[in-house]
């Protein structure tokens, strides 16, 4: 399909092996989730714990992108990232607690700050 190949690119059958390994390495956790969910009572506190872990994990992802960004985002200033998120949270709190318009405000503020800087 594409003519571009890195020097170390695996050839021929290695492709399939690499992809199969990626598939298995990822799906194993989803498969375990399906096995587990049948054993957990939907009303049990264990689900609250699972929910708290997933919530904290995604919050940590946000914090990592804001405080330790990689790639393009690393070329922007921390102040602009925090200011934009602050405006979005203010919009959420004051503008009827709606997610969509708050995200729109966040990225709009961020875009304007990038144009200015």
């Amino acid at each position: 399909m594409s003519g571009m190949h890195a020097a170390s690119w695996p050839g021929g059958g290695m492709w399939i092996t690499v992809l199969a390994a990626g598939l298995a390495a990822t799906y194993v956790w989803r498969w375990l989730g399906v096995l587990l969910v049948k054993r957990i009572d939907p009303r049990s506190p264990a689900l609250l714990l699972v929910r708290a872990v997933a919530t904290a994990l995604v919050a940590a992802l946000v914090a990592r992108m804001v405080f330790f960004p990689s790639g393009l985002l690393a070329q922007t200033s921390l102040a602009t990232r925090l200011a934009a998120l602050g405006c979005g949270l203010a919009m959420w709190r004051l503008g009827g607690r709606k997610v969509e318009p708050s995200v729109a405000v966040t990225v709009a503020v961020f875009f304007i700050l990038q144009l200015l800087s």
Partner: protein
Amino acid sequence: MSAEHEQGVREGEAAREEDFEERRGPYDWSWLIMGARKAASLPGLVMAMSFIGFGALLHSMNLPLAFGVVTDVFVWALPGQVVMTDNVSRGLPLLVTAFAVSLTAVRLLPMVVLVLSRARREGNARWPEYIAAYFIAATIWVMAEMFMGQVPRRGRVPWLIGLGCALISAMSLFTIAGFYLTGMMPKPLAVTLVFFTPSFFLLALVGGAGPRMDWLAIALGLVIGPLTHLYWPRLDLLAAGIIGGGAAFALARPAGRSTA
């Protein structure tokens, strides 16, 4: 507007009560299409931004586009795809790559449990759950929190499968678009597209937070995330999730067994 909102809240509560009665019975596959349609939504748009970024990354690493598109279909979890792409381009041994990819995927387990516990029904073959789980990652968990309350229990697993199929197809196209569009965009626009991801996840978490435990988990994740990143860069998200989520659970769980 507010009457509509209240109506929505009442319907949400009705759907939750219905949950317990509806936990047994066959699936209604007509919801497959409704799920596929939900791919065109704000979370779908945010996801598209991430996959455009993935296409751009492949281009910048001089990797074949076909490889990236195939990981969209077979791995379907962006952090794992990035790690895999990076390791393969550096020629690391397959076992090392598989282990690194698998570490990024541990986080999928709680998300699969959470989504399926609200979607599955007893008295069915389990294969639809294995298929639905194939599609579940962070964004679909958030989408399920946002939208699945409006789907009757009998339609939820088909809804997830329809949503997942539509998203994988669309994101493969966005990966291709990102591969070719990269470099053509002005920098402020390109960087704003990347910023969609943290903006959306933060507001979706805040918007979906109900009980005090949710707020604690968000706050602790935000504070602990940067710390774990400094100490365990490979396991930072998982460590922050377990420490922050565990602490939120311990601090805010309903007191005593009688109330649980």
